[in-house]
């Protein structure tokens, strides 16, 4: 009862922190795609370079998020951006690099080389091969990487509360410090629900974006 009581009395705050959480993710994910996808595309056909880049990306991912936020606060402070949304977004982008770059590389490499040769043999330019053949065929794997990044980002954003970015982390961390179960529950439930919802929504989007012929092929192979 205490929980429902809290929710009804703080509905405005809950909605505003939820929107803030979404806001941060909505900035970070497109930036991650904007940086990660071109990197992935650029390195996909350079085996050694790809290895190095993916290795760096996976090292970045092992940095504990609290430490990363700490570093960010110090580094960004001279520019007056040490607190709030900038460190949160940057941290999310850093963590998203691995799933996005890795999946783009894997997806592009998974396209049959004979098919690429057919495309070139018919007179497609490099750009045409990329946009007409490689990328459409890569949609499912690339989307899986983006989904991965987004869901992980939802969790990481919780911690961004500590660097003043607000978001659903407020309920969890304030709840912890005040030993208020109802607050912690609000945060935990909303973060989990958002994660599940985003995962589902992006899965639907992935299905929608996957070319029909590829979808049929995947069903066939199942």
């Amino acid at each position: 009862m205490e929980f429902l009581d809290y929710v009804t009395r703080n509905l405005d705050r809950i909605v505003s922190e939820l929107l803030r959480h979404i806001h941060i993710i909505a900035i970070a994910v497109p930036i991650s795609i904007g940086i990660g996808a071109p990197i992935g595309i650029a390195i996909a056909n350079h085996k050694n370079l790809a290895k190095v880049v993916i290795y760096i990306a996976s090292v970045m991912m092992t940095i504990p998020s609290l430490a990363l936020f700490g570093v960010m606060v110090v580094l960004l402070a001279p520019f007056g951006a040490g607190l709030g949304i900038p460190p949160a977004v940057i941290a999310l982008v850093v963590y998203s690099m691995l799933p996005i770059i890795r999946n783009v590389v894997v997806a592009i490499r998974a396209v049959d080389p004979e098919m690429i040769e057919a495309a070139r043999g018919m007179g497609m330019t490099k750009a045409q091969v990329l946009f007409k053949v490689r990328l459409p065929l890569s949609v499912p794997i690339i989307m899986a990487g983006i989904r991965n990044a987004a869901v992980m980002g939802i969790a990481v954003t919780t911690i961004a509360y500590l660097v003043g970015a607000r978001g659903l982390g407020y309920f969890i961390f304030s709840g912890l410090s005040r030993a208020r179960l109802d607050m912690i529950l609000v945060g935990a439930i909303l973060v989990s629900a958002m994660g599940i919802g985003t995962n589902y929504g992006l899965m639907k989007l992935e299905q929608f974006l996957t070319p029909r012929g590829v979808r049929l092929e995947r069903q066939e192979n199942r």
Partner: protein
Amino acid sequence: MAIELKKLRKVYGESTVAVDDVDLTFEDKKISILIGPSGCGKTTTLKMINRLIERTSGDIIIDGRSIDEIGVIELRRSIGYVIQEIGLFPHMTVFDNIAVVPRLLKWPEDKIKKRVMELLDLMNLDPDEHPYKYPVQLSGGQKQRVGVARGLAADPEILLMDEPFGAIDPINREKLQDAFIEIQEQINKTIVFVTHDIREAIKLGDNIAIFNEGKLVQYDETMTVINEPADDFVENLLGSDRGLRSMELVRVHDHYDTDFFALELTEKLTVGDALKEIEKTDRRYAYVLNEKKRLAGYVVRKKIEKANKSDPLKKHVKETESIHPSSSLLEAMSLMMTSGLSAVPVVDDRGRVRGVVRFSALMEMFGSVDLTGSD
């Protein structure tokens, strides 16, 4: 358009010679086969024509121009390229697959649509059902037909085919080959075709180029290759039963004789009239065509000489067996055996007599080949 290879050479790394100074000319409107064991340089040679592989030295001349004078993208768009079924784009419908090159060339969409429908028809694919299917929904044979249609889409003069029927089961393969021969009769392209299957080479090829270890071992007309293999390597490739085998595979189409005599039948034409005509030649018999110029049968000179000269010729016309241009010489031979005819008329789909296959010519053609198969 003829394609000339001049001292064509491909070296990988320091010293791996993949193609070793090959000189040959792929003739205009002919099917030229490149054959040999894997690693012999046949595919490398093919891919140097559309510059998927860049040559190390030598030159390739198409229609008098070195391929270097043409931009690589333009060159590729002007040459049809067909590979195994895997080359179809799975995310595109049959229609979009076929339309790839026309779209690259920015044809207007209505022209593309017309062309795609035309090609589906040519490939014997249902224009109502097939264009909006995806490759995964087609059988292997259908996929390969789409592949050929895609290669032909922009109506290129030259078609490069890299083991196009390699992944198809033997029965459907035969069917595709038969269909392909008929298609080539209609489209008359200059085709360079890579295969490792000697049966396919003999069946489809006007000319055959045999490669071994990067070198061109022999390049001749198909019958010449069969009758006069350049060396043991070619002989082994052909196999010991090459005589019978090639009779089975070589088409009547390429080897009938157009020198024959035919009379046109009318109601009034009498035996006397016919004899007069025949006597102008020294033929022993004449084919008889009906009013629509279709084959009605034949008359034997000796027989009608004994007949009443005022008889209508019609009474003396004997029916005859005939053979289709796409049948094999072995079929022609067996028809001769069963019907007792020493020559069989070649009649096409429209019922026109195109020529005649004579027993004597067959014997001459295969004379130097040991038909028993023991060397």
